[in-house]
């Protein structure tokens, strides 16, 4: 369960910032732009949001997949109940995901303002739809409206009720907050004062708004989902609740003080606090009348799953660290690239200078050599012999290349025969395995024998 929750929390933090970035794009589109300067500024805000998220959105999105797969492995019955009863909001979230991803894919194809505007509008709308829909799912689970069984709950009223809608709105507000904090920190790293100010103001506003929504949601939850309310405020959920309040408040203070990196961390803590509070308030129940222990898959499955997650995590987290390290250190920024290129250009300049120096040395050496050749009577013969050697060498090289291609062709034929015999004629599984290996070797050697790049080059010579 902790794994699922960690996944939910990471998705909420990383994906939330992602959704928030999309949301702010919409804000700039909807706001009226009078005057050239303001329009340019709005465009820069959108560009900034896009560039900050482009390299990482797919990795952020995978957390959702992670949550789904771990849930259906560890709590299959609960997953079936949730997904079938809450099919409608999940479909909405899925449609949102489709359009968000498509917008990322399409954005690389255009630079025209009108087309970009359309794509960004779609992107932003879906960035609101998805967190709202997922928020209603959480609200429905938290208020105990998902009964066990195949679509046992009503299609609409299990998620269109006050608690779900409140949680959905809260999710959107929190995403806006996370997105603004994240983008402000990103802009601060890029040293873009104007953008920093813009996102700082947005972060403060969204933070106040998210807090207001959270406070407004409390009486709704009190009236609608009494058990959740009590366990959140009087019971075990209080710790998480307190952490999130502290985290949210300190984020506001840090943003106001322009300590954006710290603000990022405390904002993430606030979101994690909300999720921990929800989990603590709800346990030991997972669904209405279904405890966590009852819902769990058999013991061996859970062990295998934990081992898989631990092993996967050992590979995953260093990779994620690499990605975010490159991103947060600004290696993917257009500016960073330019600086690097400058460096590379300087290097190649030095290289050219070196080469020039080497060239003049070589010329000197040649001159020396010519004098020496004139002086020696058999010099010309020696040169002739050298040329012949060189020719022979080139011929041998060509022969070698041809024969290596021939060798590859023969090896590939051998692989084909081996594969044919072991896979098609033999019956034993081990022979089949060996046959497949032979066929793969056959394909690789055949590719090497064809040598397509050389083949394409050769046409010119004819």
């Amino acid at each position, binding site marked *: 369960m902790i794994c699922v929750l960690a996944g939910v929390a990471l998705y909420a933090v990383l994906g939330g910032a992602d959704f928030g970035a999309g949301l702010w794009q919409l804000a700039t589109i909807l706001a009226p732009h009078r005057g050239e300067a303001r329009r340019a500024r709005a465009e820069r805000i959108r560009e900034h949001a896009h560039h900050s998220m482009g390299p990482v959105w797919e990795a952020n999105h995978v957390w959702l997949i992670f949550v789904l797969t771990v849930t259906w492995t560890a709590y299959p019955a609960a997953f079936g109940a949730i997904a079938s009863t809450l099919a409608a909001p999940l479909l909405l979230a899925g449609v949102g995901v489709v359009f968000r991803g*498509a917008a990322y894919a399409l954005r690389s194809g255009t630079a025209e303002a009108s087309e970009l505007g359309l794509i960004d509008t779609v992107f932003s709308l879906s960035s609101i739809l998805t967190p709202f829909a997922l928020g209603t799912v959480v609200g429905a689970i938290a208020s105990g409206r998902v009964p066990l069984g195949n679509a046992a709950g009503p299609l609409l009223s299990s998620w269109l009720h006050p608690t779900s809608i409140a949680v959905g709105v809260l999710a959107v507000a929190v995403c806006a907050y996370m997105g603004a904090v994240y983008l402000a920190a990103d802009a601060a790293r890029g040293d873009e004062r104007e953008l920093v100010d813009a996102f700082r103001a947005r972060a403060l506003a969204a933070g106040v708004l998210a807090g207001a929504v959270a406070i407004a949601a409390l009486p709704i939850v009190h009236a609608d989902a009494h058990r959740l309310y009590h366990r959140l405020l009087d019971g075990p959920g209080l710790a998480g609740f307190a952490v999130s309040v502290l985290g949210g408040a300190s984020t506001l203070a840090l943003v106001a003080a322009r300590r954006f990196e710290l603000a990022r961390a405390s904002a993430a803590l606030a979101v994690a606090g909300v999720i921990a509070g929800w989990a603590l308030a709800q346990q030991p129940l997972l669904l209405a009348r279904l405890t966590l222990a009852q819902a769990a898959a*058999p013991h061996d499955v859970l062990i295998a799953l934990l081992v898989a997650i631990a092993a996967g995590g050992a590979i995953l987290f260093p*990779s994620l660290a690499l990605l975010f390290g490159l991103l947060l250190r600004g290696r993917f920024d257009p500016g960073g690239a330019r600086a690097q290129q400058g460096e590379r250009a300087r290097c190649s300049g030095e290289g050219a200078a070196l080469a020039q120096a080497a060239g003049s040395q070589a010329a000197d050496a040649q001159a020396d050599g010519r004098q020496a050749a004139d002086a020696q009577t058999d010099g010309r013969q020696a040169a002739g012999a050298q040329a012949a050697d060189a020719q022979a060498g080139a011929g041998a090289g060509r022969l070698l290349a041809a024969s290596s291609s021939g060798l590859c062709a023969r090896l590939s034929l051998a692989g084909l025969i081996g594969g044919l015999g072991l896979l*098609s004629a033999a019956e034993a599984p081990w022979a089949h395995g060996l046959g497949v290996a032979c066929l793969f070797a056959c394909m690789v050697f055949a590719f090497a024998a*064809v040598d397509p790049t050389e083949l394409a080059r050769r046409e010119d010579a004819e």
Partner: protein
Amino acid sequence: MGGGRYGGRVSAQSLYLRDASQMQALSFTVHIPLVCFGIALPSMIAYLEWRHLRSGDPLYRTIARRWTRVMAALFAVGVITGTILSFEMGMLWPGFMSTFGGVFGLGFAIEGFSFFMEAIFIGIYVYGWPRLGPRAHLLSIAPVVLAGFTGSLMVISVNAWMQHPSGFRLVHAPKGAGGRAVDVHPLAALFGNSFLWNELVHMYVAAFIVTGFLLAMPYAVQRLRGRWGRYERTALAVPLTIAAVASPVQILIGDWSARDVASEQPTKLAAIEGLAHTTRGAAEHLLGWYAHGHVEFGIAIPRLLSLLAFHDPDATVQGLDAVPLWQRPPVNIERISFQLMVAVGTALALLGVWFLGVRLRRGRLPAQRAFYAAVAAAGPLSVLALVAGWVVTEVGRQPWVVYRVMTTTEAVTRARGVPVGYGVLAAAYVLVACGVAWVLRRLALAPLDGPEDPLGAGARTGEGSHAGGAGAGGPRASGATGA
């Protein structure tokens, strides 16, 4: 996939089985060609970038960069269609997930990590192009290639388990609640399965064939239009060689798969062949239409089916009559899909042999226009064969979701409104398909140094001088200088 019509247990509750099946089939058909690109394209790009590093020839780098943009766009679309599939698992088939999620879920959990690695390193590769050192950059695509393999291994292990379930015991619950799987051994269920290996190899090789022919297609069209510089030739030769090498081998692998189906899923084989009665020394029927218990208007080849399926002309092949009517898959869908796959696959293999033969005997690319017209047609045809092959696998499993354990009727959601979801999804996919067609066209036409290009920052300055003109004029120019 339409299995409900044939089921004897159809009840009023499964009103939406057909819609749910078609919705799943639609999502799958959209997703699977994108998967092929995810599996095969990274290694092709890596090959060209490696050639660039070895030879210093900027042409290879230009092609690799252009393909990288295609890969990034298609990967993004693949991410979303894959997400929809995993949503649908629960939304449409809660009975299946509730009962067996614990048995096969581990496969998807591990696949999730493969997917993570792909997403992370594609991000690093695409955005790191002008910014990482050349070696580090080439190295950053290696995990993507590897994850493409492990990802397909895990997903196919689940599919193979559905075809040939093991590693658990089912305790039936009262009131048809689907029962409960006990004594679960997830690793044995996923990997101790003979179906996994031939399905995996068949799909993995198919991915290279589909990607190879689809990627070669636009350059074959260029050849037909008279544009034939070194840029086009190289960009055609690399994917075409891969497809040409893989498609003849695929016939052997397909034969292996078919023999496994013959021994493990005899009803599926009977449906594929339209064999109504269990027969000794069964004949193979080409073309034709299955009706009234036999194939009408087909060309019969005596004893061939027994020979192909069991390597013995006198072997007995089980017919459809071995199982009750409601357990039989729709025969004509099976037959037509299977013959389509085999026919297209054979044609692609012949095309590959043509290419390899010219290479071997003359040492050059084929000169005939007909060859390039065939390559241009091979792209879409290979997708057709791919989808037809999956139809054979999945429709042939009907009416079972878990072969001989759970029917699709038991698995499908009881929720109303499935047609609405189907309609919404279909509309969304039509829009996305239009968008993808538009963006691929844009990517093909746009010069590589446009301001919208995620890789563009490097193309404008420094070493990008060659890439700057690499769009419309560049390849031609470099082709001309090569001549």
